[in-house]
Each structure stands twice: as structure tokens, then as C-alpha cells.
């Protein structure tokens, strides 16, 4: 309770002892990255800790979501329907700075901005997303992406729009090549939803066309469900080549649109979507937070980077198997990370009995959706999936289930984007 007496004491302390007032100043929570992890973290912090000062650093003024990008490729959604601004985030009381965080000094607790400014913090939530590993596939660099789009890091939406234009311009009967990376990568079911959504467009607009999916892996998320749907909806249209049948792409010729496999097979295609191998975003690697494989190992309760306690790393930049790199996991884990950060800053214990929740929906066709659910908890050595729970949609001819999951997928998208960017 606020009494006149505590007020007086507080005022007196502020006037008499600036050093003490600094110690009692609002806790500064700095969030790097305005995507699913960072925007969710900012909202949760703002809603739950009115006394904490929340600052969000995000270079872009408009955020294009990865989820539902494949529906833009299908032509059933427009880019502006998956693009969001930060007005509502700001209106909620978050200080939003549109600049690039270029470096972290964990000792001084300060973040350097590309614009020259340095921002101090008490606790840092780092949700920077991924970097594409240019050159991991020989010949696939930023220039090549202008010819063979990845459309995997949306940026301003240009990559998604480019791939859509190429699909629209392709002649009927053309082959669309899709190169799919090894694990781990952002959104495990994403490439297969993309195959499905491109197929749904081709079936309507260019029915003689084919999709050649060249995969570095031998198995993938919701594989049985996807392949059942491909056989039912797009028979003969999709060829999926796993890594152990020479599906791994090691080289591209961007001008000739040639995808070359590990054993030298050269696939010349009409349109090529190359999803390259990935790592945590550059700032995480530059700050020395990532392991040798390029991802940030984190504490399963607090999400503090093992390499730098005090920096809580959420979203696709961390490695938290068996949890997937998904928007929902970024959202779900953001709350535990923020609550832990603030508790630790105040000398309290992080919330106990943490659980993390994920539902990944994939659109496979018109009114045809499938899902995988996972409930995870901190374990003695990382994260543990809760036994006898979660899992994928049932297989079989279940039109009502598929139709409802497609509708529920839309509701998920609306709910989670409202939470991050809505009023």
C-alpha cells in the first residue's frame, strides 16, 4: 500500500541520495528482435510488470510473418495480410527503437546500435532469429537469392513476392525445384507446407507442372500426413527425394537454375526455391553465445545463454531440442524467459514448474489442415517432451478433422498476431 509516509521517504531518498535512487530506478528490460519471441516478450513484460521499463529494438518498421507466407505463395493471401506494424506495441507502453542491434557487451550490460547509440540494460531478452548460411551451398549467396529466392527470412516480404512472381511467370509444365536443408532449421514443417501450397496453386493454374523437392534429410515433420495429402490432392505432381537417395543439394548455378546434388546430379528447373542451412542470427554469434554448430545453448528454466548468464535467448536462435523452432514456441517460452529475467534481477527465484507449449498447424490444401502438438518441460539435461501427450493429427480419411484444423489454423494466426501486434 502506498502511504503518505512511504511517498515522503521515497521523495526524500531521491533528493538526498542519487546513488540510491539509481539503484531503485525502474528495472530496464531490453528486448532485441521484434518477431514472435521478442514482440511476445515485450507484451508479456508490459502486461505483467507495470513497473518495468521495456524497450524493444527492431530494425524494421513493418514485420512480415514467416507463418502464412506459404499462403501468399499459393495466392490465397496477400503480403499486406501478413504484415504488421509496431504502433500497438508502442501504444502499450513499450519503447520501440527501429535500429539494428549490432553488438552486446555483457559485462557493461550494454547493447550497441548501428545508429551509434548504446543502451544499458538490467536484463536482456535476445530474440534475434536466424541467419542464412550463405555459401554453405556452393554458389548460393545473397546475389543468387535474387535469382533463386529462399523466401525463408521474410525481411520486407521481397523474397516471398519474388518467388510468387516467378511461379506466376512460369509456363505450365515447368518444374519447381525446392532445396530443403538439414536439421535444425526454422519451422520444421515449413518446407512441406510450402510444397503443398505451391502444388495447390499449380493444380489450379498450371496443372502439368511438377515439384521436385530435394531434401538433405531422410524424414520430416508430419511426413505421413503430408504424403497422404499429396497423394490424395496432388497425385503425381510432387517428387520428394530424401538425402539418402541423393536429395542433398551442395551446389547451385543461379543463372542456369541448376541444383546440383551431393553425388553430382544436376537438376535444371524452371523455378528454384533454395532454403539454405541456417544458424542463429549474427549478433548472437558475434557476442560469442553460439556453440560450434551456430546455435545458442540455453538453460531450460531461465533461457539464459549458457555462455553468458544474464542474456536470455529465445526464439529460433536457441537450440532447445526436442522443441521445434516455431513461432508458438518462441511465444510460449518468452513468458518464462521474461519472468525468470525479472525474478533474477530482483534476487528472486525463476518461476518453478515451467511448461512450454507448441502447436504447429500446416495448410496442405483448401480447407485441409494438419497439426503437431508438443508440451515440453525443463529436464535434468535440457528439454523433455511430456510423455503420452502431443503428437500429430490422426491419419486416415478424416475430412472434418482436416477442415476444422484449417479453420483453427487461421484462428491461431489471428490470436498470436493479435497478442504481438494488436491493440
Amino acid at each position, binding site marked *: 500500500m502506498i502511504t503518505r509516509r512511504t511517498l515522503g521517504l521515497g521523495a526524500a531518498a531521491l533528493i538526498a541520495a542519487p546513488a540510491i535512487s539509481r539503484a531503485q530506478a525502474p528495472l530496464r528490460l531490453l528486448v532485441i528482435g521484434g518477431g514472435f519471441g521478442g514482440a511476445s516478450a515485450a507484451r508479456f513484460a508490459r502486461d505483467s510488470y507495470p513497473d518495468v521499463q521495456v524497450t524493444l529494438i527492431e530494425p524494421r518498421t513493418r514485420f512480415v510473418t514467416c507463418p502464412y507466407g506459404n499462403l501468399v505463395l499459393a495466392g490465397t493471401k496477400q503480403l499486406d495480410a501478413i504484415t504488421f506494424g509496431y504502433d500497438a506495441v508502442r501504444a502499450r507502453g513499450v519503447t520501440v527503437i527501429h535500429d539494428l542491434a549490432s553488438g552486446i557487451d555483457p559485462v557493461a550490460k550494454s547493447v550497441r546500435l548501428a545508429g551509434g547509440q548504446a543502451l544499458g540494460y538490467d536484463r536482456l531478452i535476445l530474440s534475434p532469429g536466424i541467419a542464412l548460411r550463405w555459401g554453405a551451398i556452393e554458389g548460393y549467396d545473397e546475389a543468387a537469392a535474387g535469382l533463386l529466392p529462399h523466401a525463408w527470412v521474410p525481411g520486407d516480404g521481397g523474397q516471398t513476392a519474388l518467388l510468387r512472381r516467378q511461379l506466376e511467370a512460369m509456363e505450365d509444365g515447368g518444374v519447381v525445384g525446392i532445396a530443403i536443408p538439414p536439421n535444425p532449421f526454422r519451422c520444421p514443417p515449413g518446407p512441406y507446407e510450402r510444397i503443398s501450397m505451391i502444388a495447390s496453386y499449380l493444380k489450379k493454374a498450371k496443372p502439368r507442372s511438377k515439384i521436385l523437392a530435394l531434401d538433405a534429410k531422410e524424414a520430416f515433420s508430419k511426413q505421413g500426413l503430408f504424403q497422404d495429402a499429396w497423394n490424395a490432392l496432388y497425385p503425381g505432381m510432387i517428387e520428394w527425394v530424401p538425402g*539418402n*537417395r*541423393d536429395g542433398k543439394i551442395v551446389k547451385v548455378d543461379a543463372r542456369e537454375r541448376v541444383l546440383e546434388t*551431393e*553425388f*553430382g546430379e544436376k537438376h535444371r528447373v524452371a523455378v528454384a526455391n533454395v532454403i539454405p542451412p541456417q544458424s542463429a542470427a549474427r549478433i548472437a554469434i558475434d557476442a560469442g553465445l553460439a556453440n560450434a554448430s551456430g546455435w545458442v545453448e540455453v538453460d531450460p528454466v531461465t533461457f539464459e545463454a549458457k555462455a553468458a548468464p544474464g542474456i536470455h535467448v529465445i526464439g529460433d536462435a536457441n537450440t532447445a531440442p526436442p522443441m521445434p523452432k516455431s513461432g508458438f514456441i518462441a511465444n510460449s517460452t518468452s513468458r518464462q524467459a521474461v519472468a525468470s529475467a525479472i525474478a533474477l534481477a530482483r534476487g528472486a527465484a525463476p518461476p518453478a514448474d515451467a511448461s512450454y507449449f507448441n502447436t504447429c498447424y500446416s495448410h496442405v490444401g483448401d480447407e485441409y489442415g494438419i497439426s503437431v502438438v508438443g508440451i515440453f518441460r525443463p529436464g535434468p539435461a535440457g528439454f523433455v517432451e511430456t510423455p503420452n501427450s502431443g503428437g500429430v493429427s490422426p491419419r486416415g480419411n478424416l475430412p472434418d478433422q482436416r477442415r476444422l484444423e484449417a479453420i483453427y489454423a487461421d484462428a491461431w494466426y489471428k490470436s498470436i498476431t493479435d497478442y504481438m501486434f494488436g491493440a
Partner: protein
Amino acid sequence: MSGLATPRVRIPRTVRAGEAFEVRTLMEHPMETGLRQDGGRTVARNMLARLAITVEGKPVFEAAFRNGTAANPFHVVHLRLSRTADLVFTWTDEAGRTASTTHRVTVT
């Protein structure tokens, strides 16, 4: 199924004398162990037994496969040559059928 699949080998065309070069091999094969159940029935055993690499007829590397080798056996080894030679890669299944491929490597 009568014959075996066509083997795949990735190997440099030219190498320097005595220097290590990488050889990658991939052979499509289900490697059925005879232990797997499918729809309540046991799938019959169908395994590759061995991969042999020879240089001018002389064996330099062999692999003997047992149940724990994955389907579509994949191997990476590093060899070296002192002079230009033909390398022959031969896979043999447990029924004695073989698939073979020859690659000439020129030593410069």
C-alpha cells in the same frame, strides 16, 4: 526385384600423388533386417553384405554390413594414390548379387 540399384560415387577426377582425397558412396538398398514388422507381417530379410573398393584389382577398403547399417548405405573415406588408377566399387548382397562402378582417378 532382380538386380541391385545403380551405385553413386563422388570422387575427384584428378588428384595429387600421395595426397588424401575424399570418396563418398551411396547405394540405394532397403537393408531389411528381417526383424521389421509391417502391418503385422515380418518383412523378409534383404541385406547388402559388403562394399569393396579396389585399386587396380587390389582391395584397399572393405565394409561388412550388419543390421545396424542404415538403409541406402552411405560412406565417406579418404584414399590416396601414387599413380593414375581405376577404382572399382562393388556392392554385394547376401544373395551374392553385385553392383559395380569404375572411376578413373588421374594422378598429376
